[in-house]
């Protein structure tokens, strides 16, 4: 079903993922305007674009005794990781590369965020940024295991690590429907790895913006774009894993993919406006004591179902 798109799709990928990221940023801006009681005008919708232009015309900034190379590397890595990971995410029937190990590729690349965000915290030699970089590592300890096992659960159900195969496995029933716990798990993981909404502690107000506290000008722009790209990448990957890929009546495959991605993205963005920050130690505890066993139980059930179906 999923086929490899021509080589030029490598160039299309940043544009498509960037469009989703922009949609996320615009939706976020509309939530802000609504909560503030401002009328929703074109200027409100365009706030993210204006913000990007602003960062292009403002001065970059450095700090006293920074680890400049690692600091800038961290910001750039966020963007690169999101783009590379999305190479295996299909848009309708096309995928930049439907690797045989697609889900492993995606998970492994997004695990590189650990390094990227930590470097952003380490770089400026600022205690707030440093503390926030470590917050992300602590958060990753909580979300990474359940997320990885969830993705494995889906792969077990489909009997393949290939994203195209996983979509084919949902021809009759979406995995999101018969594995609701895995879908929930995945969405929690998606929010946490994009440090968004209840998991935004690494960039929270209490530490003056956390890892972004010292970023200005184009460096800040790179980081912000990267963060929205990660959010978009996480939302987009929900579609092949849990929502049947591009399958759907009437509309073409690519339109269904876009539609489903936007819905998931909307849910993730809305979470930021409705849910409070989760306390890190509580999340850590809940994740290991409640979420992880449940995730393993889900994996066990799926394994049994697969074996019974095969027999």
């Amino acid at each position, binding site marked *: 079903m999923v086929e490899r798109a021509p080589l030029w799709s490598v160039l299309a990928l940043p544009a498509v993922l960037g469009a989703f990221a922009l949609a996320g940023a615009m939706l976020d801006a509309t*939530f*802000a*305007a609504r*909560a*503030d*009681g*401002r009328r929703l005008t074109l*200027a*409100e919708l365009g*706030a993210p674009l*204006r913000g990007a*232009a*602003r960062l*292009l*015309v*403002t*001065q*970059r*900034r*450095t*700090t*006293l*005794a*920074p680890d400049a190379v690692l600091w800038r590397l961290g910001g750039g890595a966020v963007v690169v990781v999101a783009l590379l990971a999305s190479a295996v995410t299909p848009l309708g029937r096309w995928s930049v590369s439907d690797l045989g190990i697609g889900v492993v590729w995606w998970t492994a690349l997004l695990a590189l965020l650990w390094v990227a965000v930590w470097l952003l915290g380490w770089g*400026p*030699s*600022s*205690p*707030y*940024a440093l*503390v926030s970089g*470590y*917050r992300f590592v602590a958060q990753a300890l909580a979300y990474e295991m359940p997320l990885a096992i969830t993705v494995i659960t889906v792969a077990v159900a489909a009997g393949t690590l290939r994203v195209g195969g996983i979509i084919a496995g949902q021809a009759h029933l979406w995995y999101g429907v018969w594995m609701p716990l895995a879908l929930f798990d995945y969405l929690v993981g998606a929010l946490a790895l994009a440090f968004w909404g*209840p998991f*935004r*502690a690494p960039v*929270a*107000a*209490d*530490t*003056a*913006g956390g890892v*972004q*506290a*010292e*970023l*200005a*000008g184009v460096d*800040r722009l790179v980081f912000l774009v990267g963060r929205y790209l990660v959010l978009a990448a996480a939302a987009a990957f929900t579609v092949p894993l849990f929502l049947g890929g591009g399958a759907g009546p009437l509309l073409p495959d690519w339109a269904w993919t876009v539609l489903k991605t936007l819905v998931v993205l909307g849910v993730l963005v809305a979470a*930021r*406006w*409705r*849910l*409070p*920050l*989760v*306390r*890190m130690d*509580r999340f850590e505890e809940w994740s290991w004591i409640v979420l992880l066993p449940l995730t393993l139980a889900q994996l066990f059930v799926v394994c049994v179902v697969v074996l019974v179906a095969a027999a």
Partner: protein
Amino acid sequence: VELTGRLRRFALARAHLFLVEAPGGVRTRLAAERAARERGWPLVDSPADADVLVVCGGEGAAFDEVVDQVWAAVPAPRWLLRLAPDAGVDQVGQALPDARDAMLERPGGNHPQLAHALARPAAHHANGDDHPHSGHRHGDGNGHGDVHSPGDGEGEGGHAVHGGGMEMLGGLTVAERAADRDGLQLDVLHVPLGPALPDWPAGLRLRLALQGDVAQQVELDPLPSGEWASPTFWDRPWLESLAGKPVSVRDAERHRATAHLDSLARLLRLAGLAGDVRRCRRLRDDLLDGTAVGQVQRGFAPVAGRLRHSRLLHWSLDGIGVLDAGAARQLGVTGPALRAAGADEDLRRGDPAYPGFTPVVGHGGDVTARLLQWVGEIEASLAMGATSASQAMRPVEGRHESPRGVIGAGRAPSVGLLEALPRLLTGLDLAMVRLVVASLDPDLAELQGWRPLEAAHG
């Protein structure tokens, strides 16, 4: 050039604001927050993301130093806007676009970059002056002590840290080592919190010894108190009533609800409820504007419902910064912070202008309890503000129940709140420190002439 100019005008049409509030500058901050909200100008968390540095009230050498240091961290184009503590809504609403336009004309800004305030990391504070944590006090009495030697700048607004004459790395002090609570040898960083932090009591500065993100030691070090503007805006109706001017229950309760809504918005911002922060600020501004109380009640009801029933919120805040009734009384804490611990002490009971008054009483005395206490008291005050006749309130034994507690005799209510901090904060991580401070929200403008006691350190 023309194109660049137009791009710049487009890009900076909505200038990002970083607000620094001096004690006594509340009204100006409220006006600035309101103008920013109506225009859709973002209020940012760190000076690195700011275009216009808005200073609300405040004068004096120590405060100027804070402004210089924050200014050093603002990237160009930038502008410094100093607003008088009594600037009105219209005045501030006009000053903001003026500042933006001026900034577009002169991107370099209107304030010199001072040598002693070189751009440090917005939160890194280190210098070589060597006083150990206990001995020397900064900023006591008049003037600003002796700590502001050249080179002791940093951006976020805190000041020098007790470096203890340590090794320096490019001008920054390298962390020292000390045993943590489990006896492990860990790095210690000395970091001041405040006074130029958003959602932070104006003029408050804490000196933390951080191991990782845990505050192992907390000292109070507020800005010198000679600089407060006189009587705080939040206490005004009660101070007026004490001075013999008749103030109606309706007006006083309206003012109380406004004060609590402001405190609540600041706490919610740290708790991460982005939507309700903005709603609370809006309701607060509506009350200041003279909007009918009934309308504000309708606006607040869904917010209150969410705060009461959000299990995720309670799960995250429960058990932090517990101040039980006994400890609160011992520290001289009154008002909502005491009632949140289960005590039903409220002077309004004894005031004949409040017939049949029953205080709102919480339980637990933690951050959740204090948050819900504000929610309950806002609802109660709005209800009284909507129905009470214009009867004048009367002091009870020369005292009144103000938003932060009993005023009129003895110490100002914020003194107790402030002195509770070192004990409550020691051993908490940075996120919790911010939450606990916001949940007590001392108003330093109440503290004329107060200075921290040595005994008050944690």
